[in-house]
Each structure stands twice: as C-alpha cells, then as structure tokens.
C-alpha cells in the first residue's frame, strides 16, 4: 500500500478513511484528528490548564504526548492504586514520560495513605473496578479543584466509546446514553472532563505510540475480569473489517445528532435508574460532602462513604493527597 499523499510505502492502512499513510503523513493525520475533536466538541484552548490522567497504558501516555506536541498546558496525574507490580511499573512509565516531556507529574499515593484498592473494595463490599472508579474520579476532581486546573483529560478512544455506546444500547440504559459525550461540562463543582482521543481507534493510538517510541505497559490491569468490553470491541471490529467506517459512523453520528439535539427526549421514559457509572458523583446535588467538603450528590460523597468502611479511626483517609 502507498501513502495517499506522497506515494511512499504506507505504514498503516485506514480503510475507514479510504486511506493509507506513511509515517510522516500518518502523524499529521493523527494530530489533525485530535485537534478536530478538541475543536468540534469545544474541549479546551491553549489558555486552559489541563490535568491529564495517566495510567501507564498506551492511550493515556499517547494523550499526554500529543497534547504536549500541540502546545497545550498539561500536567500529568497518576494515582497509585496499590495493584502490586502492575502499579510499580505503570508509575515508572508515567514518570519517564514526564521526564521526556519536561512536564510535571503529580502522584497521589492512594494505596499508602488509604489502602490498596483490593482491600478497600473488600471493606466496602463493592467490585474492584467500581471502587477503583470512585477513587479515580474523586482524585481527578479533587486535584483539579485544589490546584487550579480547569480541565481533566482522559485517554478514552473511539473503540472504548463505541463499545460503551453499544453496551448501553444493548441494555437500553438510556440515562447513560443521554450522558455519553466526550465533554462533560463543569457543573456542581465538578471540573470539565474531556476525551480528546475519541476520534481515534486503538490501532491508530498504538501506531502513534510505536512510531514515537513511547514505552507503555501492555499488560492489562490484573483486576480486570470483566470481559464484556472486549466482547463488544471485538464485535465492532469484526463488523468494521467487513464494512469499513461502521464503528466510526456509529459513534460519531451519535455525537453529531446529539449535538444537534436530535436525540432529545431519548431518555424520557428511561425505566432503569443508572448506577452512577457514567454520571459519577454528579447526579443530584449539589451538596458539599460533610466529611471532605468536596462537591457531592448527597450528604457524604461516594469516596468518603466507601473509605469510611476501612476501620482506621485514627486516620482521616481524605487528607493526604
């Protein structure tokens, strides 16, 4: 295959764009896609201070790298969840990226100061991933609020978002469908959250990381037992191979229709109450958490509720970050 622009040997084929690109033109394409997402969903500008949540995986490290390349003002945020070797290695990779970009990395020593995620999940009788979700959302917001960042960016990609949309539709979780968008505006004291890689597939992101020699952790988090996300991704990728462009169309058309207001009323009759996975702490409220004082949907925020299950009366878990 030849590069669509310069006719050199291509390094990647992009059937959904009816294209193939050499290294140089692929990297141009990648940049344009990120800029386009930032612009078309009004994510942020060069005046904003952006907190980039990094985990050591390809998506978040690529996100930090490209935003830095595009001259945005970025700081990394890493939360040490105490997941054994996995956490140690992922933290090191985030530190390496900070060094190579010459940017600051903030580290929240969650596992040292409070408890490893697994112990907290056991104490709170929740799944590892939902506990992890509460903790991460809490610190993304806390650090941003306290240290003056106005935007929180995560590395979710087109495959993640399309798989989530498919999952929500398969279960008719219309409340979630209604909320799914690559920008969640600042409200009720929660900072604006953005997903600048939402126009790019995992393969494109992995290619960007490879071509830029970004070292990332390929291993999965050892606590990820739930394989539905993989199942939906595979289903979408099978369809995509037979019918290029479908995955992109499925997700992006959803966003465009939503932006135009064509999906209004979608969840009017939503029968099922959401469990808070997409909305996080932002449903209801606004209140101030009685324990930590941060914005909350109830008297006590989810974070303080679950950390309250740890029997550590001599230690206030929320004062360490």
């Amino acid at each position, binding site marked *: *295959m030849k590069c669509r622009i310069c006719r050199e040997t*291509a*390094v*990647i*084929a992009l059937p959904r764009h009816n294209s*193939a690109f050499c*290294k140089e033109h692929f990297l141009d394409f990648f940049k344009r896609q990120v800029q386009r997402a930032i612009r078309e969903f009004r994510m942020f500008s060069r005046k904003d201070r952006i907190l980039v*949540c*990094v*985990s050591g*995986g*390809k*998506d*978040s490290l690529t996100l930090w790298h490209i935003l830095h390349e595009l001259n945005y003002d970025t700081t990394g945020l890493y939360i040490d969840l105490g997941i054994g070797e996995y956490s140690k290695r992922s933290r090191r990779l985030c530190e390496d990226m900070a060094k190579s970009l010459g940017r600051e990395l903030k580290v929240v020593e969650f596992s040292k100061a409070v408890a490893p995620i697994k112990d907290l999940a056991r104490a709170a009788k929740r799944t590892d*991933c*939902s506990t*992890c*979700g509460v903790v*991460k*959302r809490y610190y*993304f917001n806390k650090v941003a609020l306290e240290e003056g960042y106005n935007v929180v960016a*995560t*590395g*979710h990609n087109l*495959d993640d978002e399309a*798989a*989530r949309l498919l*999952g929500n539709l398969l279960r008719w979780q219309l409340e979630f469908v209604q909320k799914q968008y690559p920008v969640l505006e600042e409200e009720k004291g929660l900072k604006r959250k953005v997903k600048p890689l939402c126009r790019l*597939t*995992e*393969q494109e*992101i*992995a*290619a960007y990381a*490879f*071509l830029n020699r970004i070292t990332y952790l*390929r291993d*999965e*988090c050892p606590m*990820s037992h*739930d*394989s*539905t*996300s*993989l199942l939906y*991704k*595979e289903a979408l*990728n*099978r369809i*995509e*191979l037979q019918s290029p462009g479908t995955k992109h169309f499925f997700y992006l058309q959803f966003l465009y229709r939503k932006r135009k207001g064509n999906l209004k009323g979608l969840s009017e009759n939503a029968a099922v109450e959401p469990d808070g*996975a*997409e909305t*996080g702490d932002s449903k209801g409220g606004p209140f101030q958490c009685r324990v930590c004082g941060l914005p909350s949907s109830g008297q006590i925020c989810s974070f303080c509720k679950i950390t309250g299950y740890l029997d550590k009366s001599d230690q206030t878990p929320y004062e360490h970050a």
Partner: protein
Amino acid sequence: MAKIILPDGKTIEVKGPREIRAILRRLNILENTVLIVRGDELLTPDRMIEDDDTIELIPVISGGSLEVSHL
C-alpha cells in the same frame, strides 16, 4: 522460515514468501486489532514476509471494565 510472534507471546514459523493478510486470516486474527511490526518498521497487511523475517503482532485492544474512569 519466517518467525511470527503472536499477540499472546507465542511464536510460530511460516514458510515465506507470504502475504501477511493471509496469515492473519488463517490465525483468525482481526487486522484492526494488531500492529504488524518488523524491527522498527510498521507494516500494512498487504506486505509479504520472507524467510528469515521476524514479525511481531502487537495486540492493540485493551479490555478493562466499562467503568468510565478505567484508563
């Protein structure tokens, strides 16, 4: 023989020359779920591999949970 390192880390040998796409099909690996790497080069699936080549198929799909903040 060409060496192919599969997404799960196992290695197989294949007689060259052969189109990578055909190999992926036979292994039931979806083209859009791997990077095809030879040394420091990235290859498209229409490329041929020759005996003595070592090709690595790097998985690109990450699982995790559908939790919104899984990164």
